[in-house]
Structures are given as C-alpha cells and as structure tokens.
C-alpha cells in the first residue's frame, strides 16, 4: 500500500513535470513546446493594429446600415489582399467597425491602405478599363428562379447601361474582367449583348459566395466615408520585446513564488509548487482549446493569476498547521485543513470572479484578455487547490515515509 502510493506520487510528479516543462515557456519557435504553438499571440505581442472606424455621412453617401455592411465587405477583401491570416473585423453598434490585424511589418501602412476609397473596374480582354464602380448602381445576390443556381444581379446607372450595352455587343463570347483595387475578382464571359443595363453573373458555388461578391461589388461602387475613431498600432519590434521581457519577468516571479512556498511550507509547499505548474498547464490548455488570443494584458493577467492561485494553497496550509498544533494526527489534520479552509476559499474566489466578470463586460477591448485570463485563472486555481493539491497530500501522507511533522510545520 505504502509503496503503491509512493509510486503513484512519483508517476504523477513525473508526468506533471514533463507536461509543465513541455508547455509552460510561452515563446514561439520551439517545436518541442506543443501547447504554446497553439496559442495565438495578440497584436500587441506580435505587432499589429487595432482600429475602430466610424462610418460618417457625406454628401455623396449616407452612413446607412447597408453602407456599413458594404464597407465591412470592402475591408475584408482588402485585408485578405494583405495576406493577413485571421483578421478580426466586427461591427460595433450601428456604424462602427473594429478591425484587428496582427503580424504585419508596417501596421501604419495597413491603416493607410484600409481607408483608401475602393476602386472597382471592368476591363476587356485587352486590359482596357471600360466601366468603373461609379457606373454601377447596385449588385445583389439571388437564386435563379429557373435553375435554382446562385447568381449576382448587377444594375448599371443610365450612363453605365449605355456603355455596358456597347461593350457587351462588341465582345460577345469573350471575358469581361472585374477588378477591385487592381486585383482580378472574377472573369465572367459575355454570353450575349445586354441593352437594358441589367447583368447577371453566374457560376457561384453557393449563395454565400454570391453574397460576398455582391457585397464587394457594391462596396466598390459606393464606399462610405470611414473616420478613424481609435487606432493602436504596435510595431513588431516592440511586440517581440514586450513578449520576451514579460516571459523573463514571469519566469523569475514564478521561481520566487515557488522558492518562497518551499522555504515557508516545506513539503506542502513543494506540493503546491507542482500544483502551480499543473495550474499553468491547465490555463494554457484552456487558452489553446478556446483558440483564445493572448495579449500583453492577458499575459500579465496569467502571470498575476499564478500569484493569486497560490492563495488557496496558503489558506489551506495555514489551516493544516493550525490543526497539527492542536495535536491531531497528520492524516486528520490534512483532511480537516482542507475542509475548514473551503468556505474561505470559495467566498474569496467568488468575490474575485465577480470582479473579473464585471471587468470583462465593461473593459475596453485591450483589457478584456486580462479579465478573461484572470477569471479562468480563479476557476482553475480552485480546481487545482481542491483537487490536485489535496490528492497529492493524501497520497504523500498515505505513503507513510514523509510523516515527520517537521516536514509540515516549522
């Protein structure tokens, strides 16, 4: 029995140590750190840009909900052209758009390009621009009533309709390229002359795809004026610097906490050190599983939560020491310690959680990550303190070879 417990402890510690070592140090570029590979770094750690745009009324274009939608389509297309992976583009309120792009070399240039007006062109085979977005009055996706196939219906303004009639008459059987900001969007072939200013583009895989093209065509035709309400760009150099320095600082802070715990609480302190490592892995797992983006504030939240997570262990160990002083046996002191500390740990953590949730709800975007990691941290620390630390101490006490009270008490 005793030997069995000891083997269990050894195996668990070995596994905990391996997983922790293999995933704790969150620096990219090391292939043997699987967990950290799956955690996206936010734009303040990789360099990037966060922009809040607001659609404003002008004489040419009103900031209608439709205009905002079209602007979003326009921005998406452009950002894709920058070759950015996983940009965030979301509408906020009625006429604001939030754009977040990480991992770009020159964030300021991206901002410049984003709010340039879109330029839509239609070019014949020889490359001549025959029509532009200014000639287009509308573009809508639809399902063809006869074939059930998705299509995009274009409506030209009177002048555009005249030109379009001429172009289609002269180029039957040849393609008419649609370009957005100089990039080929689609290359439909002219089937027959179209005199009435209405055109249909077919050949889409889904209605969604037709919608995307229609949105883009409309954006090209009618960009609404976008003002920058808020802009935060972080150069890649500063981002990399912040990440490296925070990780170093975190590692030193973490080490100091572990040393303190072992020096002060001895054997239980050592167990809590392993608990803390398990806690750290758990947090990284949750972040990776939810595909969360780790920002600088989030990283600070994580590091701070390490320090706060140890609190539950401290409360419990203080209780165990008290129970030992009253003369209880080791085993019952450990049990009573956990039991009697529970109410304090629970109440304290629920209050902390309330603050974290409110912070998450009200905080501006760049602080949300901090609130999230802090909140997840509180939940995870309750678990590691009540489950892992308890289990390990039980096994250790049960193993019988580390029963000297001097290992528990000063």
């Amino acid at each position: 029995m005793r030997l069995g417990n000891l083997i269990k402890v050894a195996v668990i510690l070995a596994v905990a140590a391996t997983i922790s070592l293999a995933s704790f140090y969150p620096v990219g570029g090391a292939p043997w750190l699987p967990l950290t590979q799956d955690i996206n770094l936010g734009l303040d750690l990789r360099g990037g840009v966060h922009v809040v745009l607001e659609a404003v009324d002008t004489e040419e274009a009103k900031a209608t909900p439709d205009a905002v939608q079209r602007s979003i389509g326009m921005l998406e297309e452009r950002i894709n052209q920058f070759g950015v992976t996983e940009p965030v583009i979301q509408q906020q309120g009625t006429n604001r758009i939030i754009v977040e792009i990480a991992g770009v070399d020159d964030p300021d240039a991206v901002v410049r390009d984003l709010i340039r007006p879109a330029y839509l062109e239609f070019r014949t085979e020889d490359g001549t621009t025959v029509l532009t977005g200014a000639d287009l009055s509308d573009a809508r996706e639809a399902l063809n009533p006869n074939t059930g196939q998705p299509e995009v219906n274009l409506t030209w303004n009177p002048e555009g309709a005249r030109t379009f009639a001429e172009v289609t008459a002269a180029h039957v059987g040849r393609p008419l390229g649609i370009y957005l900001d100089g990039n080929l969007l689609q290359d439909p072939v002219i089937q027959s002359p179209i005199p009435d200013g209405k055109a249909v583009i077919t050949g889409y895989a889904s209605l969604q795809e037709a919608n995307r093209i229609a949105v883009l065509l409309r954006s090209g035709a009618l960009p609404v004026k976008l003002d920058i309400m808020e802009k935060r760009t972080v150069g890649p150099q500063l981002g990399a610097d912040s990440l490296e320095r925070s990780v170093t600082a975190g590692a030193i802070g973490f080490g100091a906490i572990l040393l303190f715990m072992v020096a002060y609480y001895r054997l239980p302190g050592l167990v809590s050190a392993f608990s803390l490592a398990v806690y750290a892995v758990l947090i990284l797992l949750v972040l990776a599983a939810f595909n969360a983006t780790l920002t600088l504030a989030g990283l600070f939240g994580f590091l701070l939560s390490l320090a706060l997570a140890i609190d539950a262990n401290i409360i419990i160990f203080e209780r165990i020491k008290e129970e030992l002083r009253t003369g209880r046996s080791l085993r019952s002191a450990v049990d009573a310690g956990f039991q009697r500390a529970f109410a304090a740990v629970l109440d304290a953590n629920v209050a902390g959680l309330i603050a974290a949730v409110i912070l998450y709800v009200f905080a501006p975007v760049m602080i949300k990550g901090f609130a999230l990691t802090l909140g997840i941290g509180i939940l995870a620390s309750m678990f590691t303190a009540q489950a892992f630390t308890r289990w390990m101490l039980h096994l250790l006490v049960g193993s019988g070879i580390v029963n000297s009270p001097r290992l528990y008490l000063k």
Partner: protein
Amino acid sequence: MFHIVRHRKYWYLISLLIIVPGLVSLLFRGLNLGIDFTGGSMVEVRFQEEVSVEEVRTVLAGHGLEQSVIQPSGDRQVLIRTGVISETQNQAMVESLGREIGALTVLRNEAVGPVIGKELVQRAIWALAATVIAIVAYISWRFDFKQGLAAIVALLHDTLIALGIFSLFRLQVDSAFVAAILTILGYSINATIVIFDRIRENTKTAKKTEPLEDVVNRSLWDTMARSINTSTTVMFMLLALFFLGGATLKTFILALMIGVVSGAWSSVCIAGPLWLDLRKRLPWPKRPAGARA
C-alpha cells in the same frame, strides 16, 4: 499578542493621513489623464541615431504641434503625445521625423478620438459601481450587511489611495489603470473575505464571556500569516514584472502594487475593526453575525 483591534483609532488615522492629501490633490488638480480619456495621439519611435528632444520639437513645430509632450523613453527612443489630430496629420508628422531627423522605426502609434475617451470614462464609472454593488450584495448574502458595508469602506479606501497617489505624483492614468483599480477591488475583497470568514467561524465557537473585540482580534491574528504570505507572493510577481516586464504596462503594475499593499492593510486594519464599530453603533439589523453562514 498585540491587540490590533483595541488600537484601531491609530489605523484609521494612518489611513486618513494617506487618503486626505490624495483627496485634496484629486479635488484641486485632478488626475493626469492619458489619451485614452482625453483623446489625442501617442507615437513612440526609435531612431537609428541619437536624437534630442529639441530636434523633435523643431520638426513638430513645422506641423504646428510644438506644444506636444515630447519625452525620451529609452535608448534612442522618443515618446510624443499630441492633442487630437487627424490620421493624415499623424502620418505626415511621422514621415517628417524620418525625413528630417533620420531613419526611424515606429514602435507604437496610438490615436484616440474624443468620443471614445468620453465613452471610456462612462464605462469605467459603470464598472466600478457594478463591482461595488455586486460585492456588497454577495457579502451581505454570505455574511451580514454590516460586513458588506465594512468591506465597501475598505474597497473605497484602496481606490482612494491608488487614485490619490496617482494624482499626487502626476502619474498618467490610462485604460489599463481602470483595469488595475478593478483588480485591486477583487484582490482586496479577497483578503477581507478570508478575515470575515474567520470572524464568522470564531464567533460561532467563542465562549460567551469573550468580548467581540477579542474575537475579531483573534481572527485577525489567525489569518495574519495568510494575509502576509499571499501579499508577498503577489508582490514577487509584480516586482518582477515592474522591473523586467517592459515599459508599456508600467503604470498598470505600479497601480497594482499600491493596491496590494493598501489592500492588505485595509483588510486587516480597517475592514475587521470597522465592522466591530458598525456592530456597536448601528442598531440594525439585530441578527447575530454568522447566523447565515
């Protein structure tokens, strides 16, 4: 053992001595608000060669921005804070710096419109109010209403100390500061609840002859090692982040450090003793502490 509760007047006095100057400064000078609240631009650039603040100011004068705050922020680095300017002006300013002074790298470039700043102030106030109300409600439910009141006074104490110190020393307040204040609230309430939990338990088991004053005092000492040790471990991490963690969130960490010290102090020396005073002086409600544990 030293009787903390019996000497509580001194602790109240010490807290007031720290809070009052800060409060005066807050009322007469206010806070040094960053662009998150006021609107404006903040650009940090690193030049390839050494550069003086005067050189930068001369270039900015060409754009009518000579009134801007210009300060060195590290090796060959300059931080420029302007009022609200357009994106075009912003870009033109950075371009001139590169053309007239020398090659540079933009480390960060932030611009906040005045509307966003106003919204942030509103949200910050809402967040503080919501936190305070939620926490009073939770403590009143789990403990008693007077403990909720005492905890709130301790929270206000910590908030005022952090705000006061930031006002006195003209430290810049940005949106991260709001997060720091809310984190301080969470931390401080954590510490207070651990103590209240012990008071709740000790009142239940105390002998009838033991004065409540002594029960509270005993509870404070029972939890003292925890109070000190938790603050110590949090401080280890904060100190490491403050000295090694890069410049961007320095004021955030500083606010947290003030909060951790103030939170530890207020939970031991203010919250517990104040609850005792509330119990003695406020007639309602009559039910004993810990009745709803």
